[in-house]
């Protein structure tokens, strides 16, 4: 399964994503520079975290208009797998591939901490190796991570089961206290209608190896591989 990690000026988590695919999944992976317009035949795109274009104007706004995005949008609309992490999630909402937007944290601060997430959906290419309602630990590192959307969009996401991760406590309870940033309905990650594009604020690539203090994030990547090997790629 061929992976591509899109790199913008100001991306900062691309090497971690590359490492996970190359060393842990042991699958082919390449960097895709934002000014290119060739996705090199990859099967899955990762839009990594960071501060693309300094997040000037709005987080992800300028990156979502860079040359490679035209191809990324076409790839996503055709059903290609895209994982957007943190700034990548912001870029995907700005590009219109995912609904809603991410605004400044309720605290007005950059927050870097572990969060507990409840896996709300396991019937996606990104989460098939988790169990339904499993509580996992994945860190966040963002200043603009509060997910917002209009009432209709939010109702639709809830009704269609497109909220994939929610911030919770150890018991898996979703409460205002377990919400680190003020995201509506404690949303940490959502998927598009077709089910091929996932955006999430927490960083799975930062906890994909025991030596890093946790392996819960690794299963996002191994889910993708399992899904692909299960026949989706043929």
């Amino acid at each position, binding site marked *: 399964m061929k992976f591509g990690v899109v790199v913008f000026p100001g991306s900062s988590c691309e090497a971690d994503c590359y490492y996970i695919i190359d060393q842990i999944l042991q699958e082919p992976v390449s960097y895709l520079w934002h000014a290119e317009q060739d996705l090199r035949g990859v099967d899955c795109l990762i839009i990594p975290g960071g501060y693309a274009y300094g997040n000037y*104007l*709005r987080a992800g*706004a*300028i990156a979502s*208009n860079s040359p490679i995005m035209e191809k990324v949008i076409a790839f996503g609309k055709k059903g290609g797998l895209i994982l957007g992490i943190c700034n990548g999630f912001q870029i995907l*909402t*700005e590009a219109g591939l995912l*609904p*809603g*937007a991410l*605004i*400044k*944290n*309720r*605290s*007005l601060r950059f927050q870097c901490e572990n969060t507990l997430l409840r896996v709300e959906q396991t019937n996606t290419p990104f989460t098939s190796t988790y169990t339904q309602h499993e509580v996992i630990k994945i860190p966040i590192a963002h200043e603009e991570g*509060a997910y*917002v*959307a*209009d*009432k209709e969009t939010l109702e639709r996401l809830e009704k269609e089961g497109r909220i994939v991760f929610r911030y919770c406590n150890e018991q898996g309870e979703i409460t205002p206290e377990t919400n680190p940033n*003020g995201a509506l309905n404690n949303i940490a990650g959502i998927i598009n209608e077709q089910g091929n594009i996932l955006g999430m604020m927490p960083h799975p690539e930062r906890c994909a190896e025991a030596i890093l203090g946790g392996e819960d994030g690794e299963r996002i990547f191994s889910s993708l591989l399992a899904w692909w090997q299960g026949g989706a790629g043929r």
Partner: protein
Amino acid sequence: MFKAIITITFKKSILDPQGNAVHKALKSLGYEDVEDVRMGKHVEILLRGDEPQEAETKIKEMCSNLLVNPVIEEYQVELVEVEV
């Protein structure tokens, strides 16, 4: 030549945490009669051309293509003719 002055603010339905923080700070300074504070962005664009209608259309296009995110923001444009 035109100068477009664009004011971008969060929609009323979007919580504005920066505005709330400034509101609190003003209250703590004793300005008890402050009812609400909304923060926003101010953008000035110098645009070549001499057709005001055309300039306005272009500015609105720029707003919808890049400057404003309609999911969370709304905007107002003031267009003034300036000397080259």
